[in-house]
């Protein structure tokens, strides 16, 4: 019997030694409660927020791609096999389009990181607190701006107090989903108010220089876009003028140097940083061709677009022929993605000055002819609103501004009026299911 007692006790010893073995923690991640505990972690989270914003679903290319595909108007053609961009191109977006779904989720992922940072902002070293707060507010405002442009009716369509914008969430998600996540969509006006509030705060908090990250001028530049959407030409002009007058940015000496750069060009006010190791660039992937490591040239440039340029326009020369014409702006792999360039500030200032009959900073003629057209080897043209807008269209072609300009200018594309339901993205069906159809309303036409 003693033998069995020994065996039983040996057994118990083995058993007892094991229970601690169930305490296993992950090796690649840390628990959420350990993140917002010190200055360094919060700054790392801020860099994580830029990383989130640079996702291919957002500024890493899809936002720009959507804008150009929606605004194609037979100037470009989507010939790729992927259904999701094709639906955008055809203005026949299904509510389960996985790209649209991913863009929504990626934007709110960025917003959630910003909300986390803003909640814990007091832990940041005082010396950097304003900057960190300003960057988080900038990114949050910019994300809401991108969301409202795609998922809401354009500001120019009016009814901003009744047309729906997006859901506004300003509290971080920690531990579980909360009631703050089960909210209805705010109106267009409420959404724009949040955007203006975030960006204006950011503008005052941010420094003049900040490596490749947001500065006060980045905030101003994006603000000028927001005000343009709202047709507030005075403020748009002033923000653009602030950026130009700052002297922080200068146009590249030739047009082509503004693109395919491994580091920011002198005119980049904000560019997404792309490296071989962190190559989130869907503009390259879809617009370039296999020879340069992209897909198969999914976006082709059509004659209708090419015919808009003057003969010796350097911007025309940037297109290239590989059986079909492709945009040279996105030719090379692992290059930064310009989000907002100084050239746009000149165009915005010129347009606003022209509309307002003012000459703040410079005359529209100077901005258009001496600055923009001169660089690309084009002679002066008479300054009319149409010419300014055409110049804008050519200068910023295929950089993601097209549909938003069409919408604010109340134009039309491919037979769809600027405020057509089909030019507004559907709220992803996934979101409606998750929040509840009574709370989260679908857009008209879906």
């Amino acid at each position: 019997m003693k033998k069995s007692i020994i065996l039983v006790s040996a057994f118990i010893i083995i058993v007892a030694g094991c229970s601690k073995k169930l305490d296993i923690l992950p090796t690649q991640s840390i628990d959420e409660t350990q993140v917002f505990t010190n200055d360094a972690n919060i700054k790392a989270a801020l860099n994580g927020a830029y990383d989130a914003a640079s996702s291919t679903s957002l500024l890493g290319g899809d936002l720009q791609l959507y804008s150009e595909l929606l605004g194609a108007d037979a100037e470009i053609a989507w010939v790729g096999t992927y259904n999701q961009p094709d639906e955008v191109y055809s203005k026949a977006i299904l509510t389960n389009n996985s790209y649209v779904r991913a863009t929504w989720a990626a934007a709110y992922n960025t917003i959630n990181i910003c909300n986390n940072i803003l909640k814990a902002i007091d832990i940041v070293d005082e010396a950097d607190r304003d900057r960190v707060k300003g960057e988080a507010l900038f990114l949050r405002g910019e994300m809401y701006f991108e969301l409202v442009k795609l998922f809401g009716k354009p500001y120019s369509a009016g009814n901003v107090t009744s047309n729906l914008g997006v859901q506004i969430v300003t509290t971080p998600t920690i531990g579980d989903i909360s009631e703050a996540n089960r909210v209805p969509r705010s109106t267009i006006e409420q959404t724009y108010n949040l955007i203006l509030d975030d960006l204006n705060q950011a503008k005052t908090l941010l420094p003049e220089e900040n490596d490749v990250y947001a500065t006060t001028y980045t905030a101003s530049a994006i603000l000028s876009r927001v005000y343009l959407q709202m047709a507030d030409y005075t403020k748009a002009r002033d923000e653009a003028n602030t950026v130009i007058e700052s002297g922080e940015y200068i146009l590249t000496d030739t047009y082509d140097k503004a693109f395919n750069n491994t580091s920011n060009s002198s005119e980049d006010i904000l560019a997404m940083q792309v490296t071989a190791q962190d190559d989130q660039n869907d503009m390259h992937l879809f617009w370039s061709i296999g020879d340069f490591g992209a897909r198969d040239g999914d976006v082709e440039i059509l004659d209708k677009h090419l015919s808009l340029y003057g003969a010796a326009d350097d911007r025309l020369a940037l297109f290239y022929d590989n059986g079909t014409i492709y945009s040279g702006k996105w030719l090379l792999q692992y290059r930064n993605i310009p989000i907002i360039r100084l050239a746009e500030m000149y165009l915005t200032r010129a347009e606003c000055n022209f509309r307002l009959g003012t000459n703040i900073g410079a005359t529209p003629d100077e901005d258009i002819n001496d600055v923009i057209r001169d660089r690309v080897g084009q002679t002066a043209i008479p300054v009319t609103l149409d010419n300014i807008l055409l110049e804008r269209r050519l200068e910023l072609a295929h950089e993601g501004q097209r549909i938003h300009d069409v919408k604010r200018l109340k134009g039309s594309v491919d037979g769809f009026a600027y405020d057509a339901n089909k030019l507004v993205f559907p709220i992803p069906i996934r979101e409606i299911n998750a929040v509840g159809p009574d709370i989260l309303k679908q857009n008209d036409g879906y």
Partner: protein
Amino acid sequence: MRKLKLLLLGFFLLSGQLVWSQTKTISGKVTDAKQGDPLPGVSVVVKGSNSGTVTDADGAYKLTVSEKATTVIFSYLGFGTKEVSINGSLINISLEDGQSQSLDEIVVVGYGTKIKKDLTGNIAKVKGADVQNMPVTNLNQALQGRAAGVFVEANNGKVGEGVKILIRGSGSISASNSPLYVVDGVPINNSSYSGNPIADINFNDVESFDILKDASAAAIYGSRAANGVVLITTKRGKAGKTNFQVNTQYGFNKPTHLRGFLNASEYVSLVREAAINSDIIEGIDPLDPSQYAGSWLQHAERRLTRYSGWSDWRTLETNTNWEELAFNDKARTSAIDISASGGNDKTKFYLSASYNNQDGILIGNRFKRLSTRINLDHNVNDKFKVGFNLSLSQTSAGRVPVDNEFSTPMQIVALSPVTPLRDLDGNLYNSPTTTYSNPYVDFANGKFNSLIYRNIGNIFGQYNILPSLFFRTELGADIQNQNDDQFYGFSTTYGTGSNGYGESDWYRSLDYNINNYFNFKKSFSDVHDIDAVLGMSYQHYNSEYANVYGEQFPVEDLQKLESAALIKGGTSVATNSSFLSYFARANYKFNDKYLLTFSGRLDGSSVFGNDRRYGFFPAISAGWILSEENFLENSNTFSFLKLRGSWGLTGNADGFGDFAHLGLWGGSSYNGVSGLSPTQLANKELRWEKSNQVDIGLDFGLFNNKISGEIDVYNRKTKDLIYNVPVPGNSGFTTQTVNIGSMENKGIEFVINSENVSNKTFRWTSNLNVSFNKNKIVKLDGEQTSVPGNDGRYMNSLIVGESIGIFYGPKYAGVDPANGDALYYLQDGKTTTNDYNLAGDFIVGNPNPKVIAGLGNTVSFKGIELSFLFQGVFGNQVMNGAGGFMSASFDWYDNQTREQLNRWQKPGDITDVPQLRLAYGNGISSSSRYVYDADYIRLKNVTLAYNLPVSVLRKLKISTAKVYVTGVNLLTFTDYPGWDPEVNTDYRAGNRNQGSDFYAAPQIKNISVGLNIGF
């Protein structure tokens, strides 16, 4: 410690003394029950001890046993096992050939064995001998069709890749649906970096597969057993003459079916027709030269010119059959297996070495496995035995990309038949001459090699504390070491534009396991039999993975990353998990009639939070052997009849990550600076999935067991299903892992074995298994009643009240005879529309089979043996996700399937194929149009063997010799129009994503010849 040593010493001395106790001698002869021939090499062992011997060439044995010994056990490979009471000194017995599914057969249960007759749970046993030398790479494929309720499906015909096995239906939505595999007591790791970890096992070493199906049988594995358990027992040596077996085999692999695409003439004509139709929609007459410029026809003709390369499409100079180019027309298989087994009454061994080489049917797809095994048993003394099992294998595979990659061989079918394979200089054409990048270029200039070392083994010691009580301890490990080496040359899909692409992946997993248990077995007063187990188990899993990849190689010959000028990235990750378990089981048998089993397991797992870490998994079952009762004892009809019933609870904690309960942030990077980003939403309440199963069964033997069988009815309800519940995206997260849903599987299984004819020269046996299973989702998250298909091309949905992964979406209504538009039904189910966005949603198919069946027959006449197995799957549908490309009315320039020739052409045409329209997407969105019935019956395996007669064998001085021809998947009967109805495209295969086809390779058809010699 010293005390312990002394005690142990005393203990050995004590056991030594037993040898001196009183003994007696028994002897006798063992014969083959059918033919009356003596059986040499039969193991004769005294029950409850290690003493034993084997029969000699004349079937005779002589054994000295303790005076107290009451029972001897006779067992022989391929024959049953028989227990005989010692009454006197002469015991002659005959053993039944195992093919008749003897009720005395030993069945392996968790932590022990049982005689089939005494089972109260449902265990399907497949003998290793039945699948021996079957020319497939994965043991699951060998099991296909052989066991009731066990559904096996290979994703596609890639060799050595994914094979799904579902026992009694699908039990989970988000967690694992795979059974637990236990090899000689070691729960093995069923995941790997790539490829299929089960393919590392040489199933020719396997003595038996025991598939624990109901909860009562499986509950001893508690939290791991919700999807059933496959116990794999490898062969062991028997005392006696050393027996060598040599098998060599050589064969051919072919695809089961080629579906066929348009030839050049058809392609040109239909592409032009499609372009003209599109022009007409736009109000253009492209045949009018003034309107030609900018027309779709011009676009199409320019494309035809581009695609034709050097040749002229107008004269149909080229007619390439790309589909055939996806396949290796010289695919061969070869195998050599050598084993030796034997030993004496102290030490027994089984050794094997095996080489298995299979060319896949796809270009670039290969599989080669070298494996060795040593199983050793040693009796230290009458009470103490030790042993080990050890297998070492090397699997090397040439892989091909998953089905949705442009570079996967099967996507070659999209290329135009007007495109020549090579230009005039002999170089392979690639995009832009080919419509898409040419997979043949990737094959010719790329490699994707996997090398896996796998080591599964354990050591054990077993000590008989009392004749009725033993203690067993086992220490096992499963080690995988894998390296994937990839290189794609300058002209390939991955390597173009970057001067080559290279990647090196390293994966290692270590899974170790300790089992300690007591087994108590005793009869009281001749009527009470008790067999009880009490023990514990601890298991730890670790896996580590690292990779590095780069670009810019100087020349294509330098393929290692040493030569890459640009290292693009790399990573290393690790994960760990552990289980701590205590288990107990008691079997009670009264009067050989009434059986009762209780079992329970308490499991702790590291994958749950502190408060949710432990789960208890009990089971109870009972059996009543009616044929032992007076009223049936003398029945001529019922030679055996047993009614059994069981209930049990099992769990599932696999397949959703090791840390799903935590809220996590991980590293990220932007601008070359590190960052922190959220990766997972917390759920502290996460706990086990629980599966509740009731099984009622009837085992019967009729007419002296000439016909025997089993009927089982079961209801398996899984609750607390782990499910990634969609959460509002505005939280920054899209899902949360929650226990919320429930699902049920109800079914009936029939097994019938019959001995149709049996005499000295002719023997014919049959076995049939038919299983009906109905899967139903009972609850999702409590709010949603349906989660529609989550990707555009498929419609696998989760709908309460329906089966998992059911196809739900628009219903195709054919073609409008007036204009050739594709039509869909509105939600009213009657009215049709040509606007896809207005189409209603319907249940249009179910990927879960309603019925699976297998029918095996073995006929032997003198030395000739013919066995064949038909396997069938019924009542399921498959959706072709590539329909929108390959059967798409020339929406683009992909070559089309042949039924597109039946397209609508003029008003009044009645057809299912809409008018061809280039770039107009006429009917190509996912709908019931691409859902097809996928029932099939397959001649899974057929073997014709000739055993050389004894007279010849004597001359050759060998004991057995067999020449055989064997075939796999030789015939398939199906209405499925695609390549093969057994399909689930690999890139998305999962619990929910079933029954989908997407350029998936057809299954492999093999025919092999072989020679098997024993001496």
